[in-house]
């Protein structure tokens, strides 16, 4: 199963200047390096917020989670964040398992889009 990667600058006003990355298929040991390659130029821009839309993602392994963790780390260093939305139950379970490991602070904030957007909106207003 291949991985399709669509990187879009969001036109939705509520999402401000966040970049959305839509993933469809399988994020695994064979496809994770390609996602990493395509994310690198995005992370080189001043973007602070990435939204990973996982509606079409059918499979993920630790190789994929590492790419997410590295992206999140880069964004966090510039006070941004990565959000993960529309996860299928099986994908969400994989996130939950890793999140529950002792000492792993990485995916604490992966959840609710509403919460994420509210925080973004508050930050946007505060900064205006």
């Amino acid at each position: 199963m291949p991985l399709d990667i669509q990187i879009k600058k969001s036109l939705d006003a509520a999402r401000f200047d966040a970049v959305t990355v839509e993933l469809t298929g399988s994020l695994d040991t064979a496809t994770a390096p390609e996602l990493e390659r395509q994310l690198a130029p995005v992370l080189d821009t001043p973007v602070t917020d990435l939204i990973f839309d996982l509606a079409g993602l059918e499979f993920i392994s630790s190789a994929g989670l590492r790419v997410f963790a590295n992206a999140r780390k880069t964004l966090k260093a510039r006070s941004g964040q990565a959000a993960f939305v529309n996860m299928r139950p099986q994908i969400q379970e994989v996130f939950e398992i890793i999140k529950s490991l002792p000492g792993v602070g990485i995916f604490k904030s992966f959840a609710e889009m509403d919460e994420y957007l509210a925080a973004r909106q508050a930050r946007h207003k505060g900064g205006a």
Partner: protein
Amino acid sequence: MKSLELQAIPEEVMHCVDQLRAYGREHGIDDKALFGLSLALEECGANIVHHACGGQAHEKFRVSFQRTADAVVIELRDRGPAFDPTSAAARELDDADGERPPGGWGIHLVRHYMDEVHYAREGGENVLRLVKRLQSATT
């Protein structure tokens, strides 16, 4: 039983996972169990490619899978240096500082989705045996 000999590259690991999915569907394994089996095979196969075979594409490893009356058994064999991923995992997790992704995530996922994970060194080979028991077993 299905047996495959594979080159030590990530694409071959995923080829093997595709074969497992097809085998599982043929043998009436439900999607949830098959997801866990696929993930466990991917993690263990990737581990062999990166560690046991050191990223050397000419190295080979072997995988077999079999549905028994009440379980699916996956066996992975490689001729790399002796390496027991089941004992390495705890150490790597201990090193985690909360931000750096530790290498132990993979084996942790394998343990979660499988009912048994056995490692043995047999005749110069690493042998990893994964067992997933099926809940509504039919013969």
